[in-house]
């Protein structure tokens, strides 16, 4: 495998990590909430798609289209009835409640689906590839990457071009004054988490079709998402995409040197960025 090939695979893998991270980034940007159950929610969405595929015989993409609104509703309810109660000056309650939620989701999935590794089958798409100049790229990794770009563009359009997006940013700046504009911060937060869950569903689709997953896969996805967000710098979704790409390239390059080093190389890249650029490569928010 040539180095160019390795880097291209890494960039495409980075798309997956950006999809993991975009929801986390969105939610943190709007309500300063770090959801420790984010990875487990990705895995939950993957199981939801799996169930839709196997029970209704659906194509995975069609299943994701059905799963997305369900996940939106789940995220909305979760935020409105549980997480909103934890928001405040103290960072302890949201962290501990979402940590508890992470444990609950993991073990709930273990009860429901056992510890076996699963996979969502996407038929011939899985092995299909196209030539991109000198390198070959798999159709699924390419779709993952394009979906990540689309998700970032879509979220940015929403945030910077619509009334809801203005309300998102206004609430993030100052929830009390936003109330004077008729904005209900509790609902804005619920909507943001709902949206994050839609992105999570897209991430879950590609997680599930590209690799095996099991109920305990969540925490590792959370860590990748977190690393992508920090590498990119808080407050910028394009930064998050770049962070995901850097993480992906670090991992594939590490794996090319020694297959056991894949994950480690990603973590080391993250630590290096933290060492030299503690605010990330493309910082935007002032926190």
């Amino acid at each position, binding site marked *: 495998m040539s180095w160019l090939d390795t880097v291209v695979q890494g960039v495409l893998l980075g798309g997956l990590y950006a999809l993991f991270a975009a929801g986390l980034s969105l939610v943190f940007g709007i309500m300063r909430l770090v959801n420790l159950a984010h990875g487990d929610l990705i895995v939950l969405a993957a199981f939801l798609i799996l169930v839709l595929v196997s029970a209704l015989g659906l194509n995975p993409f069609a299943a994701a289209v059905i799963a997305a609104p369900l996940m939106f509703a789940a995220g909305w309810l979760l935020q409105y009835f549980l997480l909103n109660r934890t928001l405040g000056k103290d960072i302890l309650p949201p962290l*501990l409640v979402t940590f508890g939620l992470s444990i609950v989701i993991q073990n709930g999935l273990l009860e429901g689906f056992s510890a076996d590794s699963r996979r969502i089958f996407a038929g011939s798409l899985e092995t299909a590839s196209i030539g991109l100049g000198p390198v070959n790229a798999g159709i699924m990794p390419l779709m993952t990457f394009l979906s990540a770009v689309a998700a970032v563009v879509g979220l940015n359009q929403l945030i910077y071009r619509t009334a809801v997006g203005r309300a998102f940013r206004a609430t993030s700046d100052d929830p009390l004054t936003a109330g004077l504009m008729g904005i209900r911060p509790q609902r804005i937060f619920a909507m943001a988490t709902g949206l994050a869950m839609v992105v999570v569903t897209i991430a879950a689709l590609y997680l599930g079709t590209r690799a095996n997953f099991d109920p305990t896969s969540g925490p590792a996805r959370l860590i990748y998402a977190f690393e992508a967000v*920090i590498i990119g710098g808080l407050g910028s979704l394009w930064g998050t995409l770049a962070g995901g790409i850097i993480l992906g390239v670090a991992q594939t390059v590490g794996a090319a040197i020694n297959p056991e080093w894949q994950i480690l190389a990603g973590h080391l890249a993250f630590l290096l960025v933290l060492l030299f650029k503690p605010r990330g490569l493309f910082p935007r928010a002032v926190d």
Partner: protein
Amino acid sequence: MALPSFQVETQTKASAVFGIAAAAALLIAFAAPLLVSRGVIQDLFFILTMLVLAQNWNLLAGYAGLISVGQQVFVGFGAYAMFGCVILFGVDPLVAVLIAGVLSTLLAIPTAFFTFRLYGPYFAIGTWVVAEVVRLLLAQWKALGGGTGTSLPRDATRDMLGVGLMRDVFDMKASQAGDALTYWLALILAALTVGFIYRLLRSKQGLGLAAVRDNEQAARAVGVDARRMKAFVYLATAFITGIAGALIYVQKARISPDAAFSVTDWTAYVIFIVVIGGIGTVEGPIVGVIVFFLLQNLLAGYGSWYLLVLGLIGIGVMLFAPRGLWGLVSDRTGIQLFPVRRMLKGGSLNQTSKGGPHG
């Protein structure tokens, strides 16, 4: 006229009675290996080591505001350091436990360097990343079994310092003596940890820590070096957690990276113990570890339902009784067993004296 005489106290009547009761309980606990079966001693060992981990996490999160979900790094690293000393250098396991504590503290220096750059909630995940990095690195160490792990040599624990003596004095089998010895060490470690944390909280530094927790900016304004206090707490908990991890693995005698760096075993359980018992109190983790042990036995047959229930209880407590079970008890009864609050005794503050300058 004379000013009423004030006295600053942190002692309460309940705490004095409790002090005597605790001393008696400690004595009985020391005699336990001679009184109860080996199974009970192993249970008690588990409770004591979890208590040590919980007290440390509570000090970090409840007092220093450092919410870590990566404390398993010090358990795992301490355990691996102990294994390394025993297997590679033939050090006695008990000496190795102490070395493990020192090495864990050394590890905490670069760790703090990275994680302290992250703000609040991101610190939490940052500690987790560091734990993953250390786990992955140690999984590369082939001399200690790589990813699959290894066992302590049989004769290492059998010939451990003190085991021979106990065999002669109490007429115990080697394995029984080993369990009793690790139990005693866990008991001492737990007592010292509680004593250390209690003393720290009652000291001037403890007051500074409370000030930082309540309002970091205000505390800085009156000269409390918040960063230094947090760094000290972080290093101290790394030392104790490393020792606890090493001790746990002397008793287990078998290690693997996945088990030694398990988030569930060494951090999730610990967080639930502290949250359910009551975060930000010395009593909380003690109550929490007892509740935790009872729940574990009650739900032992139900597999992952156990953790699911534990998670739900943790969420419920955080939402509806954020100061935990001990907080509920303390609010109802006013009892404090480890009082750290300073109380003025002797005079009455609203006593007004006649004939003052405004009279």
